[in-house]
């Protein structure tokens, strides 16, 4: 139970880091790429999410537990 909540908290923390640092990620060259974040750091990226997932697996990570998000270009509006 405690581990579950820790997993969720870590994921939420990395989600927060991503959204607060998306401009920084754009400047780092991650525009239009999927970026995996762990412990507030980008650890894998690619335009193809399948490549990101493979890279995480190769690093011994479980992709299900890692925050992955697409970096939209600045000014790009997504209407749901």
């Amino acid at each position, binding site marked *: 139970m405690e581990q*579950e909540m820790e997993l969720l908290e870590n994921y939420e923390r990395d989600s*927060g880091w991503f959204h607060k640092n998306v401009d920084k990620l754009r400047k780092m060259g991650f525009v239009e790429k999927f970026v995996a974040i762990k412990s507030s750091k980008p650890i894998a990226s690619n335009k193809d999410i399948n490549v990101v997932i493979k890279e995480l697996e190769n690093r011994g990570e479980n992709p299900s537990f890692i925050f992955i*998000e697409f970096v939209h270009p600045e000014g790009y509006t997504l209407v749901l």
Partner: protein
Amino acid sequence: MVKIPLEVYDFANGLRPMAHFLLRSDKPHIFAPIKAIVDTGSPKTLIGLSDMKRLRISKVQLNTIEGPLNPIRIGGGSVKTKILPNAKIKFSDLFEIELDVNFPVSGDEQINQPSLLGVDFLEKTGAGFSFNPSKREAYFEIED
């Protein structure tokens, strides 16, 4: 009354209320944290394609779920989904519910389509939803 705080982040050029929760199912096996935009314009809860990839759930696995394919239009595209019945959604030690969750299995959904927590969640839980973008504040309020 249980109050579940949500995050409000700028995402794709707009402030969005976002929920983070654990999604769990026995068949197909799923256990993963999910970030979903709370979307009162969506009647259904839907897992985005990129989350499906992250969860490593195949369309073959989803097609083993009984029930019809359900047509849904999102973001100008059209997809067909399979409904995973009674998936467990857990926000904290205080709150967990079972909800039917849609997974796209065919169609032209964009790979970067985010997961959405829809009105079905609010209806099932009886939750009130408050969103104040100027204060960057959002939360659910659910009767005990």
